[in-house]
């Protein structure tokens, strides 16, 4: 068996990489795949708290690479799913303590046992980024509809082109339908035109994400979260299904309703 090794990256920080990894990983596990998520952000680990697993960490990625423990000992089993695991980043070490070759070997080893290996890449384009992409065979780029985030995403796409990851997929995160309607936010087509890569999904801005992060429970598990629904669709697309893009026209409110009528005239 050989699993898919997918790196989730963005260039810019704070666009939702870790949230995306947590939700995609949980969504894939929900659909009975065997999944491991690697937090490659050495020194700034976060995936553990987003998943609500921060109290269970004993060993980390660097311990595995330095052979202080066996790989199996460092893998933390999720609270909710038997088939979902986390390999946490080291918090008090430096990213120079792991090399791209070591990441490659680690991913190869994990892909013998798991269906999906998701790598949460650190922000930036330095050593940490190079480590995170080294073992991956596919890439997901997360961006938000802002000038700075799209610019950085473009840079990352360029860098991935010179590696083997020349067909990345895009997640457009934190779309605000109300602002798009007013013409104050770039829409899906605008971003797609500029970046010109495969669109994997669009995730609406959702307060529920903050609440789910507060609790350490991925939004993909909540039935009422719009972002959760968007991530469930993304997971199905990763599995190879064709799922239409979610309508961004939900809950326009009274003024939204009036504006729509007004604009249609």
């Amino acid at each position: 068996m050989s699993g898919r090794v997918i790196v989730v990256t963005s260039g810019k920080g704070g666009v939702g990489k870790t949230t995306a990894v947590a939700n995609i990983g949980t969504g894939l596990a929900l659909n009975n795949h065997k999944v491991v998520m690697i937090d490659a952000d050495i020194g700034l680990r976060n995936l553990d708290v987003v998943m609500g697993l921060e109290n269970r960490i004993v060993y980390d990625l660097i311990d595995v690479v330095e052979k202080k423990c066996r790989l199996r000992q460092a893998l933390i089993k999720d609270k909710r799913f038997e088939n979902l695991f986390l390999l946490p980043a080291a918090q008090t070490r430096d990213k120079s303590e792991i090399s791209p070759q070591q990441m490659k070997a680690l991913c190869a080893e994990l892909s013998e046992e798991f269906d999906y290996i998701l790598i949460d890449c650190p922000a930036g384009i330095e050593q940490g980024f190079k480590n995170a992409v080294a073992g991956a065979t596919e890439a997901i780029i997360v961006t938000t509809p802002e000038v700075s985030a799209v610019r950085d995403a473009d840079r990352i796409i360029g860098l991935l082109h010179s590696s083997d990851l020349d067909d990345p997929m895009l997640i457009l995160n934190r779309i605000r339908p109300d602002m798009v309607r007013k013409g104050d936010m770039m829409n899906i087509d605008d971003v797609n035109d500029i970046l010109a890569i495969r669109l994997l999904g669009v995730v609406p801005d959702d307060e529920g994400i903050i609440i789910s992060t507060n609790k350490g429970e991925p939004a993909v598990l909540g039935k009422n979260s719009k972002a959760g629904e968007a991530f469930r669709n993304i997971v199905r697309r990763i599995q190879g299904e064709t799922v239409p893009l979610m309508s961004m026209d939900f809950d326009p409110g009274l003024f939204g309703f009036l504006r729509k009528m007004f604009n249609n005239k």
Partner: protein
Amino acid sequence: MDFIKRFGEDTPSKKQAVERLRLVLVHDRARVSPGLMEKLREDIIKAITRYIDIDEDKMEIELNSTENRAELVANIPVNRIRRVPDKKIGEEIGTSLS
């Protein structure tokens, strides 16, 4: 009340976002892959020398941008204009330019 306020706004800010991104990416992409500009230069030389004998050493190609547009500026000194297209170069272009 925001739909009433819209009467005063004729340029929604997303247009500026798209336009600024387009400009900044022209330069970002050219810098990230200098090889691309070099290939462009070679192909331009091939295409032009079919018709015109140029001074390749003094030729300059650069990307410039002003506030609202980017432009490719080429300064190509001409030595001589051919009477008919150079067949030999023509064949080469046929195979290497696509």
